[in-house]
């Protein structure tokens, strides 16, 4: 017990208690700073977590393109801010003293001590000495020494219930924001992919524009129109914020406008090209005119040059040359007159003039014919350019429509517009025999082909046949298009109508229902490529061959018989597609060879197969223009059939689907049936 006296006041050293008080104040100051820091942590943590959650929500659930890395900086920045704030806190001695009084139950000893000290320091002379001060100081020091260890722990977080609930709620929100499923990522990825696709289309459009610009064979007005349209399209695609619908709409609009410029589809020139081939082939075979040295690389261009050359050489023709050239011109005339009567007339006139040795007239007719070919060549170049552009735009539109979407949607957007090739890369449509075979529709169209001219080639103007697939079209149902009942035998051609010299397929692998030797279904494995196939493959054929040119192009079996008697036949085809269930027999330009010399030489358009694995007994017959004497060509093994060029199934499915879509759009078909067709192709496309 302290006995306060004069003696004790002088004997006790002041430092003994001041050190204790000072140590206590320092410890209290540290605790207060730390406690405030923890309080700041507890108070600001919900705000920070809420801020982070808000950022996550914005980043994950909106289309705002926010980076994720700022989220990682939230915690460090918050901690740094807390530390800086804590360091700037000024803890007064009075605060420390009160903290000690409050937490150590000192009954305001420390704060009173400090106040006495401060009063003495500030007031000095006017401050009356308090005789109890020293006793108070010593008492406070003793109390501090014994209780300082009882200060609350430094690391105890001063969490109130509201704080805890706020933190828990904020953390829950953040977790939810992080874990909740969102489709925005997909949308964003789709948006990015869409942007990339649009950029790709921009590049495509620019490349296409450059190609068109460089192409000297396109007529000036058309070129300007196309370039203007592509410029407009480029501007539209360059517009900021372009979305999928906008991109598709821009491409579709441009496509429609370009389509309006298309006067004649390129396959409309197929007959002309076939005739041109006959002409330049005849000239090249009989005169010293080398087609390889021709200035033009197109058949029509070559024909123009060949005709011009012939006009120049007409006075020097030998009899044999006159006979052969006259025949070639006549065949060419018959080929082209369906599409260009004037040109056919000129060619026919030229042939007649050569045969009658009326040279002036021949020169005149041939010159006119050369001009006709040249004009047709330019028109065809225009069409090809337009179709190429259309194809690219359509492809781009499809890519934009499909980009970033789940694969399940792709089948929904795979429909094409009429005449648009969806295969990769531009194709030159409607060259003779260029159309890919579509075994589908063979039965029906094939039937028609015997009695009427049926254009069914592939390409932009491909007929509205219902696409079918060879693998499913080995319909054994007999056909009897125009001549005779269906033959039940299997191996012999059917009974042909008078005047026709149709040789039926040999039928080795013909199935029941083979009919009239012209159309027989192949085995189910084949895709329509059975031997002796003729009119039955109408859906696969290109071009038209009149009677005299029966079996011209390799894939051609659609024969127009002017006499209406008897069906001409195509080439016997045996397509062995075993092991290649996703391929079918198609014609590929440049892989053909002319082999048919029977009947006055192989027409230029006749393309014979390079490989015929199963062309057993295939026969082809031709009917003359009068329908009386058809040449019969035996399609022996390896010689009479088309080359079974195998094309991957997936390369043609698009075209077939496009045809189907086109047909769905153009003809009235019950909705249920439409859905059925769409589902069918969707299923195939997967």
């Amino acid at each position, binding site marked *: 017990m302290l006995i306060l006296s004069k003696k004790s006041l002088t004997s006790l050293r002041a430092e003994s208690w001041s050190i204790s008080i000072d140590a206590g104040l320092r410890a209290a100051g540290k605790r207060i700073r730390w406690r405030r820091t923890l309080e700041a942590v507890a108070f600001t943590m919900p705000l920070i977590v809420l801020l982070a959650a808000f950022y996550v929500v914005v980043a994950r659930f909106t289309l705002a393109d926010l980076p994720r890395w700022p989220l990682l900086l939230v915690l460090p920045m918050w901690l740094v801010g807390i530390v800086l704030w804590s360091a700037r806190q000024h803890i007064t001695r009075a605060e420390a003293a009160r903290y000690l009084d409050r937490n150590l139950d000192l009954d305001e*000893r420390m704060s009173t001590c400090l106040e006495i000290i401060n009063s003495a320091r500030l007031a*000095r002379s006017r401050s009356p000495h308090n005789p109890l001060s020293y006793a108070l100081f010593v*008492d406070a020091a003793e109390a501090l020494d014994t209780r300082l260890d009882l200060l609350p722990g430094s690391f105890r977080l001063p969490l109130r219930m509201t704080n805890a609930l706020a933190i828990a709620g904020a953390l829950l929100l953040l977790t939810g924001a992080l874990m909740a499923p969102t489709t925005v990522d997909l949308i964003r990825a789709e948006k990015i992919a869409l942007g990339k696709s649009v950029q790709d289309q921009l590049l495509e459009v620019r490349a296409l524009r450059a190609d068109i610009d460089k192409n000297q064979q396109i007529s000036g007005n058309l070129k300007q129109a196309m370039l203007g349209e592509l410029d407009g399209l480029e501007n539209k695609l360059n517009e900021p914020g372009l979305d999928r619908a906008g991109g598709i709409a821009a491409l579709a609009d441009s496509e429609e406008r370009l389509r309006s410029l298309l006067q004649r589809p390129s396959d409309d020139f197929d007959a002309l090209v076939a005739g041109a081939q006959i002409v330049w082939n005849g000239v090249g075979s009989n005169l010293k005119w080398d087609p390889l040295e021709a200035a033009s690389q197109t058949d029509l261009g070559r024909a123009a040059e060949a005709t011009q050359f012939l006009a120049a050489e007409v006075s020097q023709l030998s009899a044999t040359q006159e006979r052969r050239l006259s025949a070639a011109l006549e065949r060419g005339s018959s080929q082209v007159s369906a599409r260009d009567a004037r040109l056919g007339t000129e060619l026919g006139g030229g042939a007649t003039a050569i045969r009658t040795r009326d040279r002036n007239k021949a020169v005149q007719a041939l010159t006119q014919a050369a001009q006709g070919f040249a004009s047709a060549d330019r028109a065809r170049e225009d069409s090809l350019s337009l179709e190429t552009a259309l194809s690219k735009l359509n492809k781009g539109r499809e890519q934009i429509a499909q980009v970033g979407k789940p694969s399940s949607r792709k089948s929904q957007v795979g429909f094409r517009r009429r005449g648009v090739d969806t295969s990769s890369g531009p194709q030159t449509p409607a060259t003779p025999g260029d159309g890919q075979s579509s075994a589908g529709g063979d039965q029906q169209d094939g039937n028609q082909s015997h009695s009427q001219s049926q254009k069914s080639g592939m390409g932009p103007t491909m007929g509205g046949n219902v696409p079918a697939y060879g693998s499913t079209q080995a319909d054994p149902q007999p056909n009897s298009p125009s001549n005779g009942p269906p033959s039940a035998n299997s191996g012999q051609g059917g009974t042909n109508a008078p005047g026709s010299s149709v040789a039926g397929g040999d039928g080795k692998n013909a199935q029941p229902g083979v009919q009239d030797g012209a159309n027989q279904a192949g085995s189910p494995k084949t895709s329509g490529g059975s031997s002796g196939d003729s009119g039955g493959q109408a859906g696969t054929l290109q071009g038209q061959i009149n009677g005299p040119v029966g079996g011209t192009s390799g894939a051609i079996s659609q024969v127009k018989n002017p006499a209406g008697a008897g069906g001409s036949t195509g080439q016997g085809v045996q397509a062995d597609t075993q092991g290649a269930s996703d391929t079918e027999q198609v014609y590929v330009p440049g892989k053909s060879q002319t082999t048919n010399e029977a009947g006055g030489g192989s027409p230029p358009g006749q393309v014979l197969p390079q490989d015929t694995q199963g062309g057993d007994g295939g026969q082809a017959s031709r009917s003359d223009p009068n329908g009386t004497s058809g040449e019969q060509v035996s399609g022996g093994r390896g010689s009479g059939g088309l080359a079974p060029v195998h094309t991957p199934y997936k390369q043609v499915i698009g075209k077939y689907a496009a045809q189907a879509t086109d047909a769905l759009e153009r003809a009235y078909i019950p909705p249920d049936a439409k859905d059925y067709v769409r589902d069918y192709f969707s299923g195939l496309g997967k």
Partner: protein
Amino acid sequence: MALTEKDVTSATRGTSSAGAAPPLDLSPEAFREQALRIEQEIGKVIVGQRNLVHQVLVALIAGGNVLLEGVPGLGKTVLVRTLAQVIDCQFSRIQFTPDLMPADIVGTNILNEDEHGRRNFEFQAGPVFANLLLADEINRATPKTQSALLEAMQEGTVSVARTVYQLPKPFFVLATQNPLEMEGTYPLPEAQLDRFFFKLNVTFPTAAELIAISDRTTSGVEPDVGQVVTAPDVLAMQRLARQTPIASHVTAYAVRVLRATHPDTPEAGTMTRRYVRYGGSPRALQAMILAGKIMALLDGRYNVAFRDIRTAALPALRHRLILNFDGEAEGISPDAVIAAVMEETPEEAQ
């Protein structure tokens, strides 16, 4: 934050031009020891009522007056008489009745005739001239008579016929009043009440205390109460108590408590606003602070703590609160209001 040597020196020894610190004629320990002896001696007579005795002692050391309120027979008079015996000072008792006159309290000048036949007025001191004055049932006297104590209680003087008479020191008035028999009584005016340092309620003894009372008072053995302190000792205790340091924020707390008893202050709580017409006077603050100082010393501390203020608040404020009509009608006691005030008033300023 560290204390400097200069701070320590100035705080303990003082650097004032007045020179050395005034001498301490009583150490805090002696103070506490004497107070303890007083309580022990009173305890020989008064059974229980320790808190009452403690607070009476606080008021005595503070130099204040106490209003004891309790039913008859609880030992109020015995307490005061015993206190007078313990302190060894002059004791006087006035039984207040309606016909009691002021002169009966303070005294009066009477006409005397000396041996020479000359007449002069001679002041005849009343019973108020004592160290301890028991004003028994003070509320039975008329306000005029009650007012006779005003000067004595506040100033320690008595003025009679232009002459001021100094009352002996220490002067300590212990007034009692019976809360039950209110008929024919005159409630003390506010001015009178405000001059009481404390108002203490004398509670009824517990069963054990009653047994002890019975044993002591019916056995025929008188307790031997001795004189433990003198009047100068009491004065020394009064001087020491006033030197007890108090921190400013503790004083501020007492101020906030006092202001919280006034309904028109920001510190006023719900109950104050609803039931109080007027709160404590500055004397109440003085009473709280001074009582806090004495309580700290009696508790062995050298500074006033918040709890001292809290302990002193109730007896210092309860007779100074004037309830409004609602408070009176609903039977709200001032103690309840003060308890609410203490609960609502934070120790640290907001």
